[in-house]
């Protein structure tokens, strides 16, 4: 199973890079859908004993991360005419470079960290840290409201991946609670993004800078 798991993790990284390079929002959403599917596969790959727990987790992940969230995002920007990221503070190249740096750092740190006994997939920790950092890259460099939501999703997914290392030890209830929170969170974010679009007739979050002292 390890190989399978590693492949999936590799694909997850790839999707993250894809988000970093592409500027078109709809494309980003599609990529996140793919990432959702991959994440749903991970519990199976994580080598934890298959059971109700894993099954429910897989199903829930698939439903929410690959199903609902992308819909919400698409709905949020349905009125947005311009769907390109405008003037990110660093271009795609810079994004990729930062991403690479993130990956390097993540693996560097992860290999030095002491690990729980019998961690199925070695890659889980570094990949999670990497996608966490890449999520931050998106969050701190993109300007459009929806891009930030996507960045948040990447971050969240990274943490989710790390959560899988403990798949057996975290009660199902908590896992589901986490999923639910993410769902509601993104739902409200979607609402707000939609409203931002209405109000500003653009996704540019730089326009939301009126509250200051």
């Amino acid at each position, binding site marked *: 199973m390890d190989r399978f798991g590693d492949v999936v993790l590799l694909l997850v990284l790839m999707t993250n890079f894809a988000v970093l390079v592409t500027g078109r929002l709809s494309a980003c959403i599609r990529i996140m859908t793919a990432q959702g599917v991959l994440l749903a596969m991970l519990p199976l790959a994580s080598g934890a004993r298959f059971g109700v727990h894993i099954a429910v987790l897989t199903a829930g992940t698939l439903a929410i991360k690959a199903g609902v969230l992308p819909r919400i995002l698409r709905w949020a920007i349905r009125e947005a005419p311009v769907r390109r990221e405008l003037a990110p503070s660093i271009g795609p190249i810079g994004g990729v470079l930062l991403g690479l740096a993130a990956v390097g750092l993540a693996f560097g740190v992860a290999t030095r*960290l*002491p*690990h*729980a*006994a019998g961690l199925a997939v070695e890659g889980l920790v570094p990949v999670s840290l990497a996608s*966490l950092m890449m999520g931050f890259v998106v*969050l701190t460099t993109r300007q459009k*409201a929806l891009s*930030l939501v996507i960045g*948040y999703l990447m*971050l*969240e997914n990274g*943490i989710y991946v*790390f*959560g899988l*290392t*403990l798949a*057996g*030890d*975290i*009660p199902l*209830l*908590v896992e589901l*609670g*986490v999923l*639910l*929170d993410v769902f*509601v*969170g993104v739902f*409200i*974010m979607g*609402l*707000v993004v939609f*409203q*931002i679009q*209405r*109000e500003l007739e653009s996704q540019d*979050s730089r326009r*939301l*800078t*009126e*509250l200051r*002292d």
Partner: protein
Amino acid sequence: MLLLAIVLVPALGAVAAYLDQAPARRAAWLVGCAALHLALTAVAWRLAPAAGAMGWLAFDPLGGLVLGAVSIVFVAVACYAVGYLRREDPRGGRAFVSCLLAFLASASLVALTRHFGLLWVGMEATTLATAPLIYDPSDRHSLEAVWKYLMICSVGIALALLGTFFLATAHLTAVGPHGAPLMLPDLLARADALHPAWLRAAFVFLLIGFGTKMGLAPMHTWLPDAHGEAPSPISALLSGALLNVAFLAVLRGCQVVHAAGQDGFARPLLIGFGLLSMLVAAAFLLGQENYKRMLAYSSIEQMGILAVGVGLSGVATFGALLQMVGASLTKASLFLVAGNVLIVYGTKRTREVSGLLRAMPVSGALLVTGLFAISAAPPFALFPGELALLAGAVRGGRTWIAVVMILLQATVFMAMGAAVLGMALGPAPAGPRPAPIREDRWLVLPPLGLLLLVLLLGLGLPPALRGALAAAAATVGGGAP
């Protein structure tokens, strides 16, 4: 069972209030659930029940303090909301009351749970429950506020989730799969065995994550916007209850770290963040032109004080907890009064408000009293709190911290005093209504009650509360005076 009820009553109330068609009855639902919640909390205080609900919930002094403060503040806000709903149509429409109750439910969950995972779930839930209350689709400013609130807090909370996972890893890596990880008792029991590196990492992420929610600089940026833009009862709830809940989450982390004998690295972090927050708050309070943002920054300062107090340990922690209780009540009442001012004057600009004492005597008097209460002046509850806090600093041989804090607080008092007294004093504004206007009881009594409570606590600390404070302080390495 009782504990479960404390969480479920508001939750079910939220559902019921949403389903109830008649808008008139929603207020009833709100006040009813709030009162019931307060009653249950009181019972819990008396019985101090052991673990309930499969050991996921439990009542300990630390949680009890926060729960009590939250419950009291919520009752006040609920009563205020009755008068408030008569004037303004609520944000979030029919969901308004439900969101309020949902917030109460999640806050109670955070206060009572013993599982870090549930703790996290509850924290995130508070964010999500309050966001719609700040959010007013028609108002661009509130849109911006809620946007920043959501993004920054969600990111912060996400970090906290990672921290939680780290904590579990610290447990598994060192102890192996014995006992449930993330259950507070098990963690405390095996604290000394926890893997130090993971534990530290966990604490850092918890601190930054929940610290974001708590409003520690430099993660505080969302707070003034949200508190400034939210309707006054919500601001009161945010800074009277929500911040303390977040603080509790941080304290839980401290609890584990302390049990693991790892205070050595945690304390300086807390002190650093605390002092930084105080400094930032002082800087932004000076010349602050919006009185709601002013109150928000003063909340940041309060949170900084609490962090420093916990970081100092010893008596200081006791003081910090006492200050937490006092500050939550005082700040809530101040925000409610600010709401009254906003209703009458229709502006948030400090400069455009004057003559409160003449125009609306009760609210004006409350505002001035609140100013003195929040700046830890005797005979209010924050005074002994601050005294204990500073005494801890001096006894610990860190007089410089006491000096810095006193100076910063003096600066804060200068700023807030200039603003508040400028609003309160002076001739009554020449308006259509003759001064003094009659003030709605529902809008005046709640803040009055809160301030009275602060005063009473300052005049005499009930032994029960004092014991609880001492016990709670002890769990994070504090001591009683």
